[in-house]
């Protein structure tokens, strides 16, 4: 459809405004992280690397970062395996019970985080899981599972099941077929599920606040604790690091995918 120049200009302007609105709050942390004073005032004063230094040297920060990394890594693997198997099973089930089960497994996305947190906290108090690695992993896996389920299900929906029939006719049993045909073809869904699961666990705060204790803190808990206690620009430094890390990760992934697709054509 042909657009008038005026329409095009207005559309461009609106897009720009929305883009600024979406990105600006995130970008504000970048200058703040180089503040000379121990303050979160905007605009920042002077220039210094001290908050980055603090992030690396202060065990409160470095430990919580490593904790988050550890929890998110385990959760992403666990949730991806469980979520992929669940998606596969639901795809092969009769429609009605499958839909019920699917809804059940997606509830962690819909239930308010606080409600879930209270429930988990109550159970963890009895089972002594508060402040343990296992406790974090279990709680975060519940929250991450729906993302994997959705991503893998979307891929299975477009997967041509007749390829499995073909594989069987060529001599492949069910497991071999899954490993050599189904899994490679739904790999994009599994990978994006893995990324979502990692991200979900890495920045989970509501449930984490309930089940944390002084011995085991994740990064979001540490950020929250720090910002409620004092105005420490280390928060901004952490934010900046995460911003760059995720940008690199997603950008790199997109580049890689694009190259593979090009190679295929």
């Amino acid at each position, binding site marked *: 459809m042909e657009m008038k120049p005026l329409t095009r200009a207005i559309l461009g302007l609106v897009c720009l405004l929305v883009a600024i609105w979406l990105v600006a709050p995130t970008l504000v942390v970048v200058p703040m992280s180089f503040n000379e004073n121990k303050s979160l005032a905007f605009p920042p004063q002077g220039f210094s690397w001290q908050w980055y230094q603090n992030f690396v040297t202060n065990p409160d920060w470095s430990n919580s970062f490593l904790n988050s990394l550890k929890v998110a890594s385990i959760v992403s693997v666990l949730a991806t395996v469980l979520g992929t198997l669940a998606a596969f099973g639901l795809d092969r089930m009769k429609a009605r019970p499958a839909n019920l089960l699917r809804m059940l497994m997606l509830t962690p996305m819909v239930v308010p985080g606080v409600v879930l947190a209270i429930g988990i906290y109550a159970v963890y108090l009895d089972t002594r899981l508060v402040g343990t690695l296992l406790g974090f992993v279990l709680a975060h896996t519940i929250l991450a599972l729906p993302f994997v389920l959705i991503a893998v299900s979307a891929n299975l929906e477009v997967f041509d099941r*007749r*390829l499995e*029939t*073909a594989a069987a*006719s*060529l*001599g492949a049993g069910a497991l*071999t077929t899954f490993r050599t045909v189904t899994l*490679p073809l739904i790999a994009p869904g599994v990978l994006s599920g893995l990324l979502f699961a990692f991200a979900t666990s890495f920045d989970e705060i509501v449930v984490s606040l309930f089940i944390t204790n002084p011995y085991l803190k994740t990064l979001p808990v540490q950020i929250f604790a720090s910002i409620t206690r004092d105005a420490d620009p280390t928060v901004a430094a952490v934010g900046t690091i995460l911003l760059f890390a995720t940008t690199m990760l997603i950008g790199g992934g997109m580049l890689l995918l694009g190259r593979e697709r090009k190679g*295929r054509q």
Partner: protein
Amino acid sequence: MNPGQDSRGNPGQDSRGAAIDLRSISKAYGSFKALDGVSLHIKAGEFMTLLGPSGSGKTTTLNVVAGFTEASSGALEVGGKSVVGVPAHKRNIGVVFQHYALFPHMTVSRNVAYPLALRGVAGAERERRVRQALDMVKMADFGHRFPSELSGGQQQRVALARAIVFDPPLLLMDEPLGALDKKLREWLQLEIKRIHRELGTTFVYVTHDQEEALVLSDRIAVFNRGRIEQIGTGRELYDEPATLFVGKFIGDSTVLRGAAAISGGETAIEIAGQKVATAKRLANGGSPVMLLRPEKLTLARRGADGDGRNRLTGRIGEAIYLGSGSKYEVDLADGSKAIVRSTLEADNFAIGDEVEVLFAGADVKLLADDDKADLTLT
């Protein structure tokens, strides 16, 4: 029919193919009977086509043989051994699908190597056999390509190579040319015929296209409503149809229906006041109809001498010039249509000409009427 192969003989003596025996195979989905007591013996090395309209049970039969569908009842033997309850991946049967079903994430070579890898064939031997199979379907130069880079006909040839590379004693093909255009289809039909000859494997081919069935097959099994109506060579089905359905499904035909009078060995039918007769009668009773092949009918101007043959008046409704002759559709007095093929030497007629359709009583096929024979053709 292929003159080099006498289907009544036994091509299976020194064949590498397996004989297949289906006995009273039934398959029910709830109250719907997809297969209703299908019995079929396929000889080793034979090219058998399962022909029928959609929903007639031909593909279900193929799926039962392949192991994709378990029959509700009946016995099934491949190469003399029962395969009832044997899962598809242990049957060692090659299958070619209408939708190609190539693995999109593998190159052509890896697709063809797939069944070999599963059978532990590795290294130089695997490469040699992949090349040999691709050579056979004339796709040797495409090994490094991905399926998405190939045309439909090329993909189907690769699928064929993949299905024969592990030397299965039986190859099943489910409308493999259904998605291709006519020219390509005709060429690939000849390719499939050649490959069948070179391999000596048993081929079972499913199609709804009767011309394709005639081109390819040693024998044809005609399916209708979950049953086999008739099994025979193309010539047998054309010349001696056992049922009205077969007569109408194979080739062109004129069907004459009307009030029948049977006296002694003679059957006469009255069509809009005109009586036609043949010195035959139905063996099993039932209401008789007459079936006539187009080349058995002759056209003449009104009032011409019939030489004592049966005659029906009509008007030319359609005239088609075919090069080797002409094909006419004649609207008969009772509203039905006669299809006539005439040779080059015969008189030419134009649309609207009043004509007489002449035929000898001996050329009539007398068959039991079957109202279902019409319904399934639509």
